[in-house]
């Protein structure tokens, strides 16, 4: 009984938090990419680099290591080589450019790039039913990864 009340309270709090949060989040369709950059945070707040580092490696979230190698995560086995290594990526791109690449790389590089857009609804056909209208990462997760990438300096 105690447990139920507690978890009920917890989910109410989560609901409250996400409602408050949602108000300032830019929807995927409303993200403005200008000159290859998205200047403002998608959440209106800075991301958390430590969280971003986890999202980067998590196979169910960013899974960035599938394609990119990065020395900072050498504790993880098997870094991919499909995309460029990301050591020093924070020197090569600005925060706003990195955000745009994560949001929809096809708008930045070319339609043919293998890199998925992580915060776009411009996706492939026959999307799995439960994922229709959903992005790979949330706005918050994108901001976390941006915050992480910008720390990768050489």
């Amino acid at each position, binding site marked *: 009984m105690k447990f139920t009340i507690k978890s009920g309270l917890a989910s109410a709090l989560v609901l409250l938090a996400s409602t408050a949060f949602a108000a300032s989040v830019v929807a995927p369709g409303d993200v403005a990419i200008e000159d290859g950059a998205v200047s403002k945070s998608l959440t209106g707040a800075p991301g958390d680099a430590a969280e971003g580092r986890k999202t980067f490696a998590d*196979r169910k979230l960013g*899974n960035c*290591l*599938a*394609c990119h190698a990065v020395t900072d995560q050498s504790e993880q*086995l*098997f*870094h*991919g*080589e*499909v995309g460029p290594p990301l050591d020093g990526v924070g020197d090569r791109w600005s925060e706003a450019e990195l955000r745009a690449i994560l949001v929809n790389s*096809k708008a930045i590089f070319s339609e*043919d790039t*293998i890199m*998925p*857009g992580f915060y776009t609804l*411009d*996706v*492939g*056909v*026959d*999307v*799995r*039913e439960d*994922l229709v209208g*959903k992005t*790979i990462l949330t706005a918050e997760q994108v901001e976390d990864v941006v915050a992480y990438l910008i720390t990768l300096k050489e």
Partner: protein
Amino acid sequence: MPVARGGSAGNLSGGKTLKTLFSVSMAAIMSGGMWASVVLAGPSDDKLVIDEQIEMTTRTAAPEGHPLDEVISGWHYRTPETRALETDTFQNPGMLAVEEGAQIWETVEGTEGKSCATCHGDASESMAGVGANYPKWDEDSGKPINIELQINKCRVENMGAEPYKFDKDGQKPLTAFIKHQSLGQPVALDLSQGDMQTWWDKGKDLYYRRTGQLNLSCATCHEDYNGYRIRADHLSQGNANGFPTYRLKQGALVSIHNRFRGCIRDTRAEYPAAFSDDLMALEVYVTWRGSGLSVETPAVRQ
């Protein structure tokens, strides 16, 4: 370091020290091996000879109209250990299923009291080279037909038996057994039969169509990035010449339609039914992309 401490701890821990040393060096070897395999990019230069007898064509000039210059078997993209398993039919774990298929070949089923052998006799003669030319045009259905569906057609029309359900019962072993009778024969489709060309065209469209939330087509990985690593996996050209193929990951034979579905699923898309028109068209096109490669069934892969 535990090793240094063990050195000054006298006789009793001597064994322990050795053990520690051993495990440390094993770890070094293992991680060394991993880095070696990460560094080693692109397909291997090895040659596939099965049982020191059958010289397999695993690299060949691409057919006219193919986007790549050279067609390369997925065998070249696997580790030395996995490659070795395919060179010896006694070591090849897929051969167990082929033997099961050989037994099914001789087994009477259905109302007509027939086995495959009743009509087709010795498979090593009657089926030699047959699997290398599938999918073929099937006048009756007005569609291409693959080995799996040909087996079902025979079961229903000639044996009075139930058709196999996708990947169930004898479907994979019997398909593997029949294709194995073409081991070493070059994959060659006749696109001039019936409407095969139309299905090839449709299959090509599907091959380049991006699907799912990850927005990937077959070509994105297997044409543009074969030879590269995607995490621990080494992307191949995705040829069909080894199917049904033994996948170490699953510890079982895997059919071509199962693999198609798995790949499409991994793009986070809804995937077509096995033997649907879409997947039959894809099978025609993908098999054609591997034209000239030896049939390797049952190939051994990761």
